[in-house]
């Protein structure tokens, strides 16, 4: 790897690294750290952080509770149409956020049958916190499902068979064998879904609107401040960068120390 080719590779790496890290470094470099911390003290910023935390936690709870058994079924059974089903589940993964917003409005918006039924049942979705949770769940769930299916598929089938032969019920096998064995993969999926949910912007704005403390999550608060208070926008961005870095690091930790060295 010597000569011009080596130089070419090094130049490409340097270019990629600069391009990818410079904007992130700039978030922290534009203002002294003290100003960023002060800007976070503003009431609206705290509201946004707290709302993002609550809605993301609620979305993750839904995703884990429903996604885990669903992924287990898809991973351990072979049936006709399975590949198609998995593709359908993965579709929101590649969907632009604006499309997700329009799709949610078309499906459960206030002028739709489902949306009206939900409202009559006392569940307000559009322009309400519950709507944010729906938007986050819709865009983040595929990230978890994908990882969970792969994690369950990677379990040695003889392990599950052995559990069954030893007299454990299918439910017990799921709880005591499948989940512990697939845990690193499930956690990695959780972290990816968490990251996607925290960053959600377009679908939330279109479906849930933007209101401080109710539907204005951190990305929406950043957009709201971008024109009027750039420092506050930088401060909130810095928080998201830190959280995202922590998520990435924990995924790598869960996957074993090798993943960090690599």
């Amino acid at each position: 790897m010597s000569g011009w080719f080596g130089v070419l590779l090094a130049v490409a790496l340097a270019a990629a690294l600069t391009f990818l890290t410079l904007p992130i470094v700039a978030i922290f470099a534009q203002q002294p750290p003290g100003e960023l911390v002060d800007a976070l003290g503003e009431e609206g910023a705290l509201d946004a952080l707290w709302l993002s935390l609550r809605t993301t936690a609620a979305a993750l709870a839904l995703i884990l509770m429903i996604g885990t058994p669903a992924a287990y079924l898809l991973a351990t059974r072979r049936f006709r149409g399975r590949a198609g089903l998995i593709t359908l589940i993965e579709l929101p993964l590649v969907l632009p956020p604006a499309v997700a917003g329009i799709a949610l409005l078309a499906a459960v918006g206030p002028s739709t049958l489902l949306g009206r039924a939900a409202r009559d049942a006392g569940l307000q979705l559009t322009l309400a916190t519950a709507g944010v949770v729906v938007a986050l769940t819709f865009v983040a769930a595929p990230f978890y499902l994908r990882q969970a299916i792969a994690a369950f598929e990677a379990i040695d089938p003889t392990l599950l068979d052995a559990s069954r032969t030893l007299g454990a019920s299918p439910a017990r096998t799921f709880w005591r064998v499948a989940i512990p064995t697939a845990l690193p993969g499930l956690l990695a999926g959780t972290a990816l879904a968490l990251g996607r949910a925290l960053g959600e912007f377009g679908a939330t704005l279109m479906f849930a609107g933007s209101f401080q403390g109710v539907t204005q999550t951190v990305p929406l608060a950043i957009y709201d401040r971008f024109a009027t208070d750039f420092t506050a926008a930088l401060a909130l961005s810095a928080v998201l960068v830190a959280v995202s870095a922590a998520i990435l690091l924990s995924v790598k930790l869960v996957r074993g120390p090798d993943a960090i060295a690599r």
Partner: protein
Amino acid sequence: MRRALALAGLLALAGCGDDATVSGGEQPRLVVSAASSLKEALTACAKDFPDATVRLQFAGSDELAAQIRQGVPVDVFAAANAKLPDELAAERKLEQPVTFASNQLVLAVPADGGKVDSLAALERSGVALAIGAEGVPVGDYTRAVLGRLGEERSEAVLANVRSNEPDVKGIVGKLTQGAVDAGFVYASDVEAAGGELRAIELPAELEPTATYGAGVVTAAEQPDAAEAFVDDLLAGGCHEALLAAGFGEP
């Protein structure tokens, strides 16, 4: 080999700057940042602008002003107020701005009736309202109107706000989707919604003057065409289009 690669890189970069939609000929390309509420009118007239191929981008005026402050290369700035162009001019980011149109703030409601039939109805609990965020011209005009209602009434209305939208199109969207019962938008937006919305005019004593200001960006790459476009907004094809879209004289 290296030279070939470098050349390929340059070509790729050049490709990015090129607009595939530009029709043939040597027309300069003019970038116009305009307030969301100008969308229908300017989209209609920009095609016929003789001096350049116009590329329009629409957003909340405050977002566009922030972009210009950050150095985004734009030739013309057309805002939904005179305040933002004046501020940019004071910062030497914009040449002397002019006012080229006016608009009427109205209360928009769904055309097929609904909960709101008057300004007073906005104070009732259970009514859902979408308005512009603070700093966005339509949001500032709305707050000015509410301020003139007196503190008590103004607070009752603000308590019904369900969304502070980053631009006027967001308010229209929430209205046409039925997410809210009413919203403060411009008369021209109701016009543009093609029969889906109905405008409730505000009493004259509450009405703020929504004046639209525009100017040539100091760092414009096409200052001559930009100047010509601002003139066109003042008295030309685009001015006619604005009047046709429900705007008024400045």
